[in-house]
């Protein structure tokens, strides 16, 4: 019983596996975006069915299926040096998007995608070389933005047109979808020179900025000094005027002293003497001077009695 059951499962598994293998041998799948080219005993079976889905074939070695990717794929040239019209060396890297449009022609003429890209790269290199010879450096790099954009696009179009014309003549069964100048550069020595100039320009700018700072600093200080001097002079002038006003006001009162100028001067002298004789003044006096004359013998003055009489 168990042996029978085992045989059933073995048979089932074997049947499933054999079925898979048979399907694998007799059918193939074409995904969307690809085309399956059926090659029967060396000849491409035409017309080529370009629809995706499940397809059938005879097993190998009768039928061979080559799946061709019909989607756009990219290839790039190397960053290659060229000479512009104004004898400037520039490096260009071109990238192009291409795809197969005629699978039959493609297989006959180019065989594989790798072969196709190799051929396309050499065509692009050639077209680029010719186009570069017709432009000057300032056509591609220019501070006039609009002009530069126009010339840059024209340069790309020129390569594209040349390439498409050549591809049409060559009849490879492929088309270019887009072509772009992906990178532009200078040879290394030129790049180094540009770097050096950028450094020198920045260094000059640094020095200029510091000089400007120093100059401005000096200007700020000197301006403040001048301002101080003029303000102090202004204050001095104002003070002098005020003092003059005081002197003028005092002069008005001097007329009173005219009534007895000698007395006024005597009193002024007394006032000065008081002012002068401040603390720790050394006085040299003789007994001849009043009141020290009292110290002299017989210094009793003659005092009048009833002086008022």
């Amino acid at each position, binding site marked *: 019983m168990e042996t029978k059951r085992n045989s059933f499962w073995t048979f089932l598994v074997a049947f499933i596996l054999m079925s898979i293998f048979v399907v694998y041998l007799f059918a193939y799948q074409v995904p969307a975006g690809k085309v399956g080219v059926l090659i029967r005993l060396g000849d491409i079976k035409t017309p080529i069915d370009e629809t995706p889905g499940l397809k059938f074939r005879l097993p190998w070695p009768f039928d061979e299926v080559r799946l061709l990717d019909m989607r756009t794929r990219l290839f790039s040239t190397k960053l290659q040096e060229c000479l512009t019209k104004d004898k400037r060396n520039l490096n260009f890297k071109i990238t192009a998007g291409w795809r197969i449009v005629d699978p039959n022609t493609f297989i006959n003429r180019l065989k594989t995608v790798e072969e196709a890209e190799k051929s396309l790269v050499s065509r692009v290199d050639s077209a680029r070389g010719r186009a570069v010879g017709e432009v000057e450096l300032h056509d591609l790099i220019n501070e006039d933005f609009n002009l530069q954009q126009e010339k840059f696009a024209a340069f790309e179009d020129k390569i594209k047109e040349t390439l498409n014309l050549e591809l049409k003549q060559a009849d490879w069964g492929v088309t270019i979808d887009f072509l772009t100048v992906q990178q532009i550069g200078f040879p290394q020595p030129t790049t180094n020179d540009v770097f050096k100039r950028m450094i020198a320009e920045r260094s000059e700018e640094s020095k200029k900025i510091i000089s400007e700072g120093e100059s401005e600093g000096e200007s700020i200080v000197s301006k403040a000094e001048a301002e101080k001097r003029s303000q102090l002079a202004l*204050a001095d002038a104002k003070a002098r005027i005020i003092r003059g006003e005081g002197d003028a*006001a005092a002069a008005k009162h001097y007329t009173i002293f005219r009534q007895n100028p000698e007395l006024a001067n005597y009193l002024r002298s007394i006032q000065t003497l008081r002012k002068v004789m401040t603390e720790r003044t050394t*006085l040299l006096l003789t007994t001849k001077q009043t009141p020290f004359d009292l110290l002299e013998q017989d210094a009793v003055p003659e005092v009048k009695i009833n002086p008022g009489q």
Partner: protein
Amino acid sequence: MTGSLGKRAERVALGGFCLTLIGMFIMWYVAYYCNSISARAELFHLLAATLVWGISTLHLRAQRQAEDEKAALDEAERLRIEQGKPRLFDREEGETGIAQVRLKDMERWGGPIATIIIIVLQLFAGGYLLYALANLDNAPGIAALIGITPFAELSNTTFAGAAAFALAFFCFALGKYAAGMSRDKQVGILRAGAGYTISCALICFIQMIAYAMAYTGWLTGEKILSWLIPIILLAMGLEMAINLVLDFYRPRIRGKEPRPIYDSRLTGLLAEPQGLFKTFAHTMDYQLGFKVSETWFFQFLNHAIAPLILFQLLSLYLLTCILVVQPGEVAVIELWGRPRGIETLPPAPLLSDSAAERAAKEAAWDNLQPPLEPGLHLKWPWPIEITRRVPCELVQEIFVGAPQAEGQDEPLKHESATPDVVSWDRVHTKDEFAYIMPLTREIKTEVENNGAAETPDVMFVSGAIAVHYSAGGSAADSQNPKRRIGDIYRYLYRFDDAKAAMISLSEREVTNYMAGANFWNVLVDKVKETEKDLTRRIQQAADRAGIGVRVVFVSLSNVHPPVGEVGKAFQEVVSAREKMFTIIHQANAQAAQIRASWPGKAQTMINEAIGYRDERVLLSEAESKRFLNQLTAFNAAPNVYLHRERMRAIEEGMESALRLTVVPPDTVAFFDAKAQDTAGVVGEALGKEFKNP
């Protein structure tokens, strides 16, 4: 063992040896002709199988010869006894013939040595392959030694699949036949090669499935198998090594035939006709010395395990009928490679097409069947229907101006880059490209003035410019839902590598833009405008090419002058600017100090003048008034008044002054005690000598 059975077993072993040897060459051819990594790995597996068959052949031959020799000797002994003849040579107990000695030597030395060679081969091959695969990116040279290159599309998969199937078929047939024969204990040695050959058949069969998958552009099977085979080799090597050690400790039961030491228990599971489970149980019985296989647990597992595993596998397979489209993505289901509901995809426009033709072709893409939105969907199981998911809400990031590492979302870092600091004077990104820009007008003038016009009128900027985009575009942002549908199909089916196309087109736009832009605008003054401009231009370029993406943002935050000396020069300008500000601030401080000093001084001068004026005015008035009073007093008694005034002044002066009275002819001096030198001063004044009292 009968002679015919032994010879038949020998022939089978030799057949196995030849088959695996041929298989090795076929696999080698597949490996190089079809660029298959798994085939390179399987080559080592087949080599190990060849060695197993080789040693099995020698072992069987030695066994047969020993058996023949023993039979011949026994027959001669029987005849001698019947005829009653004496022995020519004395024969001791246990003494054996040459072939039997050879068999013993084979079992004692040949088997273990061959096993060690097979173990070393398996461990070395498994380890080497795993190491090479793990370091495929870092050290491709190691992998390249045996022709392993990063996983690429396989070629000639039909041939590879057919070869793998054929090999699987023949290996399976021979393995099963040998396994059947090995049930006879006399030729049980065959079991080792049978198991190994069936394991080869199994892997070849899986390889055939992997090649079928690769045929449809799905390399997952090939990748998994490339890792799986070295792991199997390692596991088998380890298992054989453990067996070798355990064999020393195995209980020796009389009459029990020992298994060859190179007989793998793992491959034995495949060779035993009774089924995997029974084989496992018998292995356990053999190793442990008692009947593990008769326990209820083993009996239960034996009946239940196969249906359970089958059910599990079937369930897993049926899960491929359920499709869950995650939020933020849409999906397109392909039935045998054809998008569901679409007979054939519309043609892509050609460069030579007119604007109207181009618009019509693009409109055909926009009118395709809408893709599946997020949610649960049903489909036919793999490989009938497969799903292509588009993460349309996911913002993807690419970098232009610097190479981006595969599978990473940032530019390649330079070896000397510091992890957290990005500085202009140090290289931080590997192979940064220097974009050419025209000289700015002011620098150009300076250059012309300095007569240094030989160098081209250009400058450079470098940096990794980040471009953010989403495939197909967000549903929320899309103004035109039909356009969005078209973009999803464009993204899936117009380019073989949409990301590479985006990088290329973005790089072109940046190169072109920089070649006409103002250096300072890009770097400082109009960064936001430049970013917007570039976003718009890259979007237009992507639309023209039909990539089917929405460009979200372009970031110039990493753009800078070329790093190194140039970057340093730019930093020095910033330093110079700081120095300038320092100098100005210092000058301002000094000026402030100067300015702060004069107002007080000026005010003092004015105040003093005011005081002077007021004093003069008041005092002169007071003095004049006082004078009038004094005049009155004077007029009343002129001499007395004058004398009294004079005396008062002397009194006041004397109060605080040093008093001195000189009386002629003798001198009497009164000195202030505090004034020590008064006498000297006075003496000097009068030309006389005085002494202090």
